[in-house]
């Protein structure tokens, strides 16, 4: 089954912990993190810094999972696993940047 952009159950679990305010704060911090980490991963690919690519993708995966961005989390995992494979990495990180923007649009719609 294809993964959707956002799994709403993830943020519902967060709501049960800390209500709507925690969800709003987590979405804001998560999107800030996703945007910054995706840009940093792309820069690190440009420099050929595999260790930094891996670290940024790992952190991005965590932020994506927190907000239920399941497809983005899966992509970040692929980047982590292929950080040393230069041929595939450029395309994977491009996909990561595109999916990050998709996640941001989706969450801005539901959590303006």
């Amino acid at each position, binding site marked *: 089954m294809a993964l959707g952009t956002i799994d709403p159950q*993830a943020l519902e*679990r*967060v709501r049960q*912990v*800390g209500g709507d305010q*925690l969800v709003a*704060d*987590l979405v804001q*911090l*998560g999107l*800030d*993190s996703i945007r910054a980490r995706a840009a940093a991963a792309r820069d690190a690919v440009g420099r050929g810094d595999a260790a930094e690519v891996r*670290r940024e993708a*790992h*952190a991005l*995966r*965590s*932020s994506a*999972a*927190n*907000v239920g961005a399941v497809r983005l989390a899966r992509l970040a995992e692929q980047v982590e696993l292929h950080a040393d494979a230069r041929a595939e990495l450029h395309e994977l990180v491009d996909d990561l940047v595109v999916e990050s923007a998709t996640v941001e649009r989706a969450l801005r719609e539901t959590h303006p």
Partner: protein
Amino acid sequence: MTEPVIAVVEDNPDNRLLIQAMLGGRFRLVEFEDGSSALAAMRAEPPALVLLDISLPGMSGVEVLEHMRADPALAQLPVVAVTAHAMAGDRERYLDLGFDAYISKPIVDVAQLTATIERCLGAAPRPQ
């Protein structure tokens, strides 16, 4: 009674926010974004337990643990590995490295997190 102090060493602010929301009412949390600042502060004022992210900028969580275990002031502290690596065999690997427990991210189960912390706080001191 004063709440036990837990050091949270985690560079992602969203993860720190979640941990604060989950544990803030039961424990006093002190937060650090990297291992070096955490080690310096913990040497001055050791917490009751450390929640330690593995993938940190600069010094990794595993390196932070090695520094702690080599330091008499910190060697006995319970340390819980917190990681999104979540590969098969991770739990055993981190326990073998000397962590007292392991929590995988995203952290979704408050009861499991709290139970892990309580168990580590109540455990007997580690052998010298």
